[in-house]
């Protein structure tokens, strides 16, 4: 049985402006994360992946659908009823400097979840646990007594991971945990996350806009676009034989350092399409406006997420037309 299950989850928000409409940030999303599994969730800014993470954590209400944790519904719990669950469901945030209270030391911040979630502990015991976790993520005691602005991004993000782990959760939502860091530090944090996941047998949802990072870490990958899941499946398939044109676009966008990278860049420059605006139609495929393979049918009819060949899921009317996966541009 899956540890975490989402069925038909929809989150709406009011579009700011004169004609306030309700837009779907997350649109009928279904996914499942099993024990000890790290599921990758990829998509660009605004695709709803962060909102999805917050919905799982009970921070935003659902407009439709359900979130089930260990088989029980958790999306309809009030703030207070949700609190005991926070021992099991934790989060690592994107910008470490923003998610630490500037007026508390790192050790105090890391120990804070224990105050609410493990009330039996005395202050000394809390501090001990916090220091233990910090050492587990590679931060020494001297850094623990400092203030957030005195630590580098990489160090502070380690502290963020320690804070998520201090209550010994079963599931961690990692919301773009490396996007705000230098590339040279990203690798260390990714390795740390993998080590911790394996060591503690954690399940987790790894959210990012960079497919290369996600693919490194996660055996299964889910691709989101404009609130909808467009493709989901094992990493090898997604990366090796992508069926959805957006997945193909994400793969092509990963910067390459191989010999062919330059040629690809120049080809992309030569074939460049003009930048697209927002403005998705409610009917039809959300990606149709920028899809090089779009048909009239795509604009009129929304493709359902259905099982494709080889066990994955894809939401594209034309998925059957390229059995070996879409080849990289610009050969298309």
């Amino acid at each position, binding site marked *: 049985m899956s540890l975490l299950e989402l069925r038909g989850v929809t989150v709406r928000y009011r579009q700011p402006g004169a004609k306030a409409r309700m837009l779907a940030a997350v649109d009928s999303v279904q996914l499942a994360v099993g024990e000890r599994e790290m599921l990758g969730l990829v998509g*660009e*800014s605004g695709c709803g992946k962060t909102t999805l993470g917050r919905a799982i954590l009970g921070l935003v209400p659902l407009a439709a659908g359900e979130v089930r944790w260990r088989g029980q519904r958790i999306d309809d719990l009030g703030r207070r009823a949700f609190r005991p669950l926070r021992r099991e469901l934790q989060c690592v945030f994107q910008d470490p400097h923003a998610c630490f209270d500037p007026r508390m030391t790192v050790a105090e911040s890391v120990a804070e979840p224990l105050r609410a979630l493990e009330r039996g502990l005395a202050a000394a015991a809390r501090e001990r646990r916090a220091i233990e976790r910090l050492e587990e993520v590679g931060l020494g005691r001297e850094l623990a007594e400092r203030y957030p602005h005195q630590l*580098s*991004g990489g160090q502070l993000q380690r502290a963020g991971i320690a804070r998520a782990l201090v209550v010994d959760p079963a599931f961690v939502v990692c919301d773009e945990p490396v996007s705000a860091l*230098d*590339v*040279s*530090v*990203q*690798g260390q944090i*990714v390795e740390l996350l993998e080590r911790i996941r394996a060591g503690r047998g954690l399940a987790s949802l790894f959210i990012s*806009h*960079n*497919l*290369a*990072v996600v*693919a*490194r870490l996660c055996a299964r990958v889910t691709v989101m676009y404009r609130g909808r899941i467009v493709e989901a499946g094992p*990493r*090898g398939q997604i*990366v*090796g034989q992508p069926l959805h044109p957006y997945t193909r*676009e*994400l*793969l*092509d*966008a*990963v*910067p*390459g*350092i*191989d*010999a062919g*990278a*330059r040629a*690809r*860049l*120049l080809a*992309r*420059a*030569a074939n*460049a399409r*003009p*930048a*697209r*605006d*927002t403005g998705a139609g409610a009917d039809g495929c959300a990606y149709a406006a920028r899809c090089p393979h779009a048909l009239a049918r795509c604009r009129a009819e929304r493709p359902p997420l259905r099982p494709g060949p080889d066990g994955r899921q894809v939401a594209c009317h034309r998925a059957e037309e390229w059995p070996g996966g879409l080849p990289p541009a610009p050969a298309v």
Partner: protein
Amino acid sequence: MTLLAIRGLTVDFSGARPVRAVDGVDLDVAPRECLAIVGESGSGKSQLLLACVGLLAANGRADGSARFEGVELLGTGDRAAAVRGRGIGFVFQDASGSLTPHRRIGDQLAEVAQAAHGLDRLAARAEAVRLLEAVRLPEAARRLRQYPHELSGGMRQRVALALALAARPRLLFADEPTTALDVTVQAEILALLASLCREFGMALLLVTHDLGVVASLADRIAVMRGGRLLETTASPAFLAGPRDPYGASLLAAVPTLAGLR
């Protein structure tokens, strides 16, 4: 002739704890060349660029020499003079560094075009449209009337590029131009940079912490660490095997899809 010749450039910041951000850097940029400076946060790479165009913070001081087309840039006392009159364009990491939030995009572009080429209002507006088309922003005429906050991050960065191009610079400085953008948008902006440099015959000096960004774009790669320049190598040679172990570690850190298919 070397377009930009930097010799012994040093940048110091005074204050409670004095810091030497750039330590004796020598660098050359040839016309129409793309040179990328790669390094982590705090390596001094951004300060190097800012020093050349006189945009250092008030407590910063630059020593040494930076000659653009033979003219000395440092110590002239006139902030951003290099950018205004001398053929250097600047693109910041965050487009809000270039764009004024309360003025329409068309006005901002036209103003620069007028100042640079002495055009009248009508000609400046036409030039603004041309610039927006050059950066491949669709519906250019409509964009002229929009404000920066009405555009997405990637589009704002294109407008910032257009602004930088308006004065037809011979050298474009870009300080982490894609760091704040998604991978898909980043790829487009990089491709755009490549084609614009060719189209306008510009040299590009690009600063970034991400080697992946420059691998496809740069002719030469320079590695900075702790204010010092460690190595400057032609791009293909660097990607095959950097001389310096630090450069090698930066290369190894780039997340790629190799081996995952």
